[in-house]
């Protein structure tokens, strides 16, 4: 698959393009991480993250590619890994500090939200995730999820979001969180 073919697939939301890129360049990316104090597992994590960053940019049409895809992915990996190494070295200094910046309330809130997302129906969840993460257009979403048109999709999205909001808020009330 050529770079252009890959980009086309991504813009259509075809996730198999990701699979392809993952397998094709894994060795190259793994080498970068492993020769820089990384483990095999870390290499996997970093490359997966990099691919997802790439995906998000490409699928939302925010990607300005001036080089090969592999070069672009490589530089994302470099950045991510550098950040990770910095984080690791800071952690060794701030062992105790880290615990203080932990916000238990926020953690609890996020946990509830995630639970509710999981409780949503498939269609609603897909709609919301495609809308917020992939930033797909309503017409694309309509096509992908089988809605009549963009407007139908838009309405459905509004309804799904409302559903999620009330689900979350009811859970909050139950946990007596908001005083």
């Amino acid at each position, binding site marked *: 698959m050529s770079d252009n073919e890959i980009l086309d697939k991504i813009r259509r939301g075809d*996730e198999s393009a990701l699979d392809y890129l993952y397998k094709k360049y894994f060795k190259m990316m793994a080498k970068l991480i492993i020769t820089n104090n990384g483990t095999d597992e870390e290499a996997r994590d970093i490359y997966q993250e990099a691919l997802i960053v790439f995906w998000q940019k490409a699928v939302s049409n925010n990607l300005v590619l001036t080089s090969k895809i592999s070069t672009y992915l490589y530089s994302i990996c470099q950045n991510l890994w550098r950040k990770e190494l910095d984080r690791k070295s800071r952690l060794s200094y701030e062992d105790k500090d880290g615990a203080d910046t932990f916000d238990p309330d926020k953690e609890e809130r996020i946990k509830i939200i995630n639970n509710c997302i999981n409780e949503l129906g498939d269609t609603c969840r897909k709609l919301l995730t495609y809308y917020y993460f992939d930033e797909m257009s309503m017409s694309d979403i309509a096509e992908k999820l089988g809605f009549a048109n963009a407007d139908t999709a838009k309405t459905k999205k509004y309804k799904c979001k409302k559903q999620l909001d009330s689900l979350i808020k009811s859970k909050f009330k139950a946990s007596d969180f908001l005083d």
Partner: protein
Amino acid sequence: MNANTTEIIESYLKGELSGAEKTAFEAQLEQDPLFKSEIELQKDIMNSIKGYRKNQLKERLNNIDVSATSYFNLAAIKIGISILILGMLSYGSYFYLSSEDEIKEEIKVTSGITQEKIASEVDIPQTPKEANDGNPESIKEQEVVKTESQIIKEETASKKSVASNTESKNAKVERKEVIVAPNVIDTFEEKQIIVNNSHFDNTSNSNTIPSDKITEVEIKHEENKSKDLKYKYLNKKLYLYGDFSTSPYELIELNSNVGKKLFLFHNNLYYQLSESQKTIAPLAPINDSIVIQELDSLKAKKGN
């Protein structure tokens, strides 16, 4: 909250508000704490939805097996093992597929070799008692070697005919066997010579024990071109490692009332061998002049 507000909030959180709109919005946030907490919640919800999608994609990638592409190349090892198994299977099937007649011929040939081996082993130990000429021995050895190579040739010839009769995949096998055969001769031959030496050398003089009692030391020589000479003494066998081919070596046995001591003489140096040396150790030359003198006299007495 109506649809309009929701839209504005979303635009704000996406960063899509213009400068003026954004300032107005943020002013409202400061004035209305409830509104502010609602925005915070909406922010968390949006991030969580994104996070869910991220995890979904990550899981998808994580399930793809790329272990073969990492440094630990499992695929290459799997391929290597399967080739090995294939090789072994074809080797096995080669024998299985050969007709009965040819198997009988092979058995005859191999038993012929074993018989020859036994014969030559019986012959040679007797020769040290003869004059230390070396000629009778070498002729015998040459004969043995000759017949050995003859038999090996016959063997490979018969195997070649067998191979051509059976199905494919045996070409590799045949070649392998030819390679193996010469090695057999080499070590066999060498062993013969060394056995000669040891038997011969151990008719050495001893101080208190009568000289016609020959202590047999079985020697195994590991062919090695390294300059470092090493040895080990395991299960009553002396294993020698290293390049001894520069000059002949001699085993000298010193029997005294404190026991038996074994020495090796090679390249004008004496080395002491310990019979309890079970692991490979380098040969250390003896520097003690008194010991060297005594060993020299022993060697002279042997009438080398």
